């Protein structure tokens, strides 16, 4: 049998001076904007708060202790709850985005090219609007005088004359509309490249619609899906604007906590430690990207 079709390994190029020069600007960029801030974050996390909220540059593991839940009065589950709440919010938001993005991107990809552009614009434009503005927009839409709230009142879900916010529905409406573009755009890139004939082949080979999705569509769109999940999940973990505005600031999320440390609490070192913790969580979630369909090229190589 001929083996000429086997992929030949790409030859490794020897690194030379010109190679270093070529990556130089990028390296400089990464050093200034990524490496140095990250290192100072670590340094800050290992410092502590002075009496008047100033940063005291003495090495201390106090913040890491606080990070795992030990406070002034011993261990408390508060931080753990906050983390869990943020995780839950981010997970549900991501899940909802996936559920909406699949039909949406399939619909988009099956349109004529000119109409596809229109749909892409529809998805992208909200993403250009500031999240605070958008959340206040939802407040208006969900206000007591408008049809959504009236309908809910008519059906008996809320007392007459009240608004649909603050509440879970409002929060998830805000969250999903904020993060949908982050899910839909990378997924669209995968769905658009999906070979429709392969889906037909699966149908032809006795697969019912569920099996077609599970055994063909999903593995073929994993690259876009995993990028979408990361791009939704990670910022959703740190989100506090939407939950504050549409959720009535009743519950604390990681994002609120970090924001507090840098403002009201004036405890930058603990804020830094919290951010660091969130970053580590993010990096762990990047490991998820290893799930990649072997046959499909990764459209977003990291």
């Amino acid at each position, binding site marked *: 049998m001929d083996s000429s079709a086997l992929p030949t390994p790409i030859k490794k190029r020897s690194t030379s001076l010109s190679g270093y020069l070529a990556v130089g600007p990028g390296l400089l960029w990464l050093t200034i904007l990524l490496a140095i801030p990250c290192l100072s974050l670590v340094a800050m996390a290992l410092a502590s708060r002075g009496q008047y909220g100033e940063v005291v540059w003495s090495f201390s593991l106090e913040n890491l202790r606080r990070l795992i839940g030990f406070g002034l009065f011993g261990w408390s589950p508060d931080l753990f709850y906050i983390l869990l709440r943020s995780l839950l919010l981010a997970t549900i938001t991501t899940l909802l985005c996936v559920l909406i993005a699949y039909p949406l991107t399939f619909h988009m990809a099956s349109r004529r090219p000119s109409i596809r552009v229109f749909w892409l614009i529809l998805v992208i434009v909200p993403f250009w609007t500031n999240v605070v503005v958008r959340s206040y927009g939802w407040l208006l839409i969900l206000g007591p005088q408008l049809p959504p709230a009236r309908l809910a009142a008519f059906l008996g879900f809320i007392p007459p004359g009240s608004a649909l916010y603050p509440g879970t529905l409002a929060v998830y409406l805000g969250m999903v509309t904020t993060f949908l573009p982050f899910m839909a755009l990378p997924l669209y890139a995968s769905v658009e490249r999906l070979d429709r004939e392969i889906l037909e*082949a699966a149908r*032809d*080979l*006795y697969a019912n619609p569920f099996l077609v999705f599970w*055994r063909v569509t999903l593995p073929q769109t994993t690259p876009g899906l995993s990028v979408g999940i990361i791009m939704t999940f990670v910022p959703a973990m740190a989100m506090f604007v939407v939950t504050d505005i549409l959720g009535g600031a009743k519950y604390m999320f990681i994002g609120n906590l970090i924001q507090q440390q840098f403002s009201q609490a004036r405890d930058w070192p603990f804020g830094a430690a919290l951010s660091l913790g969130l970053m580590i969580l993010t990096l762990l979630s990047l490991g998820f990207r290893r799930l990649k369909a072997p046959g499909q090229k990764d459209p977003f190589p990291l």
Partner: protein
Amino acid sequence: MVAQINKSFGNHHVLRDVSLAVSKGEFFTLLGPSGCGKTTLLRLIAGLELPDSGSIFLGGQDVTTVPANKRQVNTVFQSYALFPHLNVLENIAFGLKARKVDPVTIKHKVDRMLETLRLSDLSKRFPSQISGGQKQRVALARALVNEPNVLLLDEPMSALDPHLRTQVQAELLELHRQIDTTFIMVTHDQGEAMFMGGHLAVMRDGQMVQMGTPREVYSRPKNKFVAEFLWGANILLATRDGDRMMTTLGPLKTDDQVSWSQGHLAIRPELIVLEDELARPKDNLVRAKVIQAIYRGASVELLLDPGPVKVVTSPRFNPQPGETVSLFIPSADLVALEGQAA
């Protein structure tokens, strides 16, 4: 099998009252230029499209509205449509797994299929790691392992190198001989349709034009389209004058029944007999001037005036351009085509 099928996409009427009967175990070929609706017809049989009207029967059962995944029909797609994330083995096992066949049977059937199509060494490779010919065999194996009643092949050779095609065509015929599955193949290649030997149907603009054995369709084309599409016959415009057809070549006789007063006659280039010199006068003997003579090795191709008429003859003849030759056009081979000419 397929009765009175109509199908439109938007304003485009792709199939018009198409009917087709294929007997069990046959190798049937649908032949037509691209855009004639043959692939759509195949997709309707597969269940990947629904007809606007008409019915589809498989083994006497009406399957018109049965979804693709519940039809005992499998397809070899033009691009093969192998699952890129599955290896050869998993690709072939897909259909059996989807039908929840027990793993032991799956393994047995897949192994036998791998062997039949000489794919055993490639079972762990992914589609991106095998050649076009190998992909085609995987696509065939993936369809045939399900033991379908009908195997549909959508231009299965079009993605192959020309030198591979003849070999693969022979292999396909051999495979068909071994199993009793009905094969329906779509192609735009006349040679391929002829080679496969079974019945063929010529389609044009969503309509069936002619059906029959390759010999029938080739030697007795029904109309101008079929005559030209199958290796371009000579078409002569003729006016009827009693039993004589007046053409640019001169008066000719045909054995066919002629229904028009003015219409077209067709004669295959290789059925025109070139006479060395004027023999005894007889019917259907005409004279023409050589415009071009092409030596093909096994044959000589002449382009003659008036006409231009093409003649394929033995390389024994060596007429030069400008020379006048005599042609005998056998009345039995002169086909009267349907349709009155304007």
